[in-house]
């Protein structure tokens, strides 16, 4: 089924943790704890998701169809098979891209008004 721009727009703006989760999943399948650690690393420990917040967000994204639970395991030797892995959907990718476009537009607008700041 074709995904319209309207379908995508209803998810925007994304919250920062959700955006990071989608970014991580766009690189490959992850389980919950891996997502958490990756976000922690990327944000220099600034976003530390508790498990309630993490699985709450996962639960919501599953319902919204941004991600799905994956049946495949990366390598049974490497990982505990009881862990659940998640995979980004086409809709999830479209939403992440739309968020990037939204952020870019925002940054461009800010640059025009305020100029590009020197790195601190």
């Amino acid at each position: 089924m074709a995904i319209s721009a309207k379908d995508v727009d209803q998810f925007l703006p994304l919250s920062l943790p959700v955006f990071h989760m989608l970014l991580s999943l766009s690189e490959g399948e992850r389980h919950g704890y891996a997502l958490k650690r990756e976000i922690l690393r990327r944000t220099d420990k600034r976003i530390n998701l508790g498990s309630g917040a993490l699985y709450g967000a996962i639960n919501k994204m599953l319902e919204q169809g941004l991600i799905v639970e994956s049946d495949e395991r990366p390598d049974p030797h490497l990982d505990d098979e009881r862990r659940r892995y998640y995979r980004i959907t086409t809709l999830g990718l479209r939403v992440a891209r739309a968020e990037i476009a939204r952020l870019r537009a925002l940054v461009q607008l800010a640059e025009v008004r305020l100029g590009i700041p020197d790195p601190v």
Partner: protein
Amino acid sequence: MDVTKLYRRLLRLYPASFRQEYEGAMDRQFRDEQSDAKGWKEKVALWLHALGDVATSAPRELARELSQDLRFALRVYCRRPVSAVIAIGTLALAVGASTGVFSVTSALLLRSLPFGDAPRLVELRFSPFSAGNGRAGFRNWKNHTSYLEDAATFSTSEMNLNSGRDALRVRVTETSANLFSLLEVQPYRGRTFTPEEDQPGQNHVVVISHRLWQQAYGGNVSVIGSVAHLDGAALTIIGVAPSRFDYPGNVDIWVPTVFDFEVIPKHGAFLWETVGRLRAGITMHQARQEFKADVARVDPKSLQPNSTSIPDLVGLGNQLSSQIRTSVLILFSVVLLVLSTASANVAQLLLSRTAERHQELALRSALGASRSRLIQQLTVEATALTLSGAAIGMVVALLVARVASAVMPAQLATQNYTLLDWHVLCFAIALALIAGLVFGIMPSWLIGRIQPSTQVVRVQAGSSEPVTARFRSVLISLQVAFTLTLLVSSFTIGSAFLRLIHTDLGFQPAKAVMLKVSLEGAKYQGEGAKWQYYSALKDRLQSLPGVRAVGAVNYLPLSKNVLMAGTIQVESGRKVSGVVLNGSMPGYFKAVGSRLISGNDFGFDLSKSPEPPVIVNEAFARESGLGNGIVGRRIVSPWTPRPYLVTGLVTTARMAGPEYEGGPQAYWPVEEEPPSALTFVASVSGDPRNYLTRCRDAVVSLDRSVPIYDVKTLNQSLDETMERPRFYTASVLFLAVLALLIAVAGVYSTCSRAITQREHELGVRIALGASIQQIRGMILRQGAVPVVFGILAGIAGAAGCGLIVRHLFVGINASDMTAIIIPSLFLLLIVIGTAWSATTRVLAIDPIEAIRAEH
């Protein structure tokens, strides 16, 4: 405790479905993090972070899941709207009625009085100081009591207030100067009395109520310092009491003149009331002992058990609610009975529905829904139902509270019955939530463990039947029992009420109009002037077209007066005590419709009679031992040494309404000593309501400076007296009918359900040759068992309830067997009729279809 176990416990805060999905992952993640954390600092930080996470995310997930469950519940109820509407309606009525009655209970018994340190305030049901010793005597007594820190004494009566414009009739409390300081009440404007302001010469000051300030003075601050005339006495307004303060009840003016008999002349009965503040640290019990010792010193006779009023010391809160507390508690228990009946019905309804949805629930269970997930869903459905019922019930509650305020008002304005009281709101919400929880959990418990099984596609509808059927029988028994208890109570109360209505009052209220005038503070001073005014008024009323007879009297029946009574000695030497001494104008007996049994009414010119005349009533004649022969005899009153000649004998009027027997009365001509206020009565032809304006105009046209009040028909007066009995009768009857309807609906649905469930079995029986009538009889017999148990329990309940309801009003005979037998038979017939009509379903059973459906 193992910390990971603790964390697992924390996870129980999440809703069922979320937990089922992620509990394992969250638990594992926490353990991983726990083992990754190095040193106690990191471990503490991890815990703090986890706690914060649970605190923020658990409520969010709960709200999300609840809203999903609610949407699902809405869909479920929309599929079967009729039963949902019945359940919500039943709950609305029951929860509403109980919340309404609870608002009264809460106002009287739970809400604290708006006085400083109110629990230490007490009312003395006897004043252990000699009132004759005046201010000095009172102060001396109060300064030397061992149990009171301070005390105030007061007396309340009605007076004429002339504030420059119209004359008003207001309730005035004459008090010692310290009433406000004792209650720790601060004025809204101005000041209250100084301690010395109850001394003669300094006491020409008044505090007015906030209500009077608004209504008569338009809330004008400049009123402070102005002069108000109270029964003719000029007094300076010094302050306005706080809003809603009207202690000791519906009072608009406070004057520090309780010890001064000159400033405002006292007439009629003057009752001293005393309120005190207990010393710090003294218990109620100790205080009561010391009070009794105090009374024993002053008046030992009053403590004897046969004394008319036993001296006592009671908490002010109890004293203020004593009039209606019993009735309110009785009504509250009755209303809880109805609530129980309603709950039993809703429980049955939900039980049947859950049984019907067995297949759906089993399917969901097979698809992975946990047991707690299903219980949560059922509980949310039930709670949504009960909360909607309670929300609609608030309208019913509002109505009940309104009616209650009109019929049995609280003594103080601050004790008004409102739903906006946290006790009341908590009560309603708690009721709805508890009911929702019970209704939600109970069916899931009864249905048993819902297991995904191979039977999913075709679940036996009656698989858990024995338990639910037993439970349903118990519910039916309970319902029948509660309903019978209420029916018997309403029958008992209703027949007492009918007896009251048909009581001979000793006068005829149907065709009479009454009105009161007061000459207090008016220009008519002196006996001659007063008599002239009264005679002129009588003539003026008499001349109105349609008026048949006019008379006047000191105390009119049904007027809620404080009556003066004394002991009168009859010629024979016998003494008649408790005689109400009443003054009447010629024509009174004819106007009020009291029959003269023998002798004559008073004549207009007393100088013509050789001896001062007096008319007595039958009760007096009976107690004097002379019967009808009392006419022509002489009696002596305690106040005048001269004997009076009995010139007439009239029927006994029930002064306080049909509930109470009329006592002995002696009437003498008011002309002898015209009082400053009289009540006029006119008997009229046609509807007496048409005469109210005409009579008022007649009084105003004579002299507009004389205040006229209580202009109404005697029937209105009677209605006011009967208001409480009528309210109790109507409410208990209403509740009984409600309970009956609920029970009928319950019995009907149970019977129909039993037939639907046994369709196969019944089909087989019919196929094997059983007649329809035999089948119906069998179902009826089986259904009759819980009903009979219910009726037996109901009879026991009714006997217990009878002991309670007889306190509602006088004349309720709780030991009347017919009051138990008739409602029991009535209920039995109704229930059998209902069950029989429900069994018509049997006619629709096609034996072949029923058997085929099973294979």
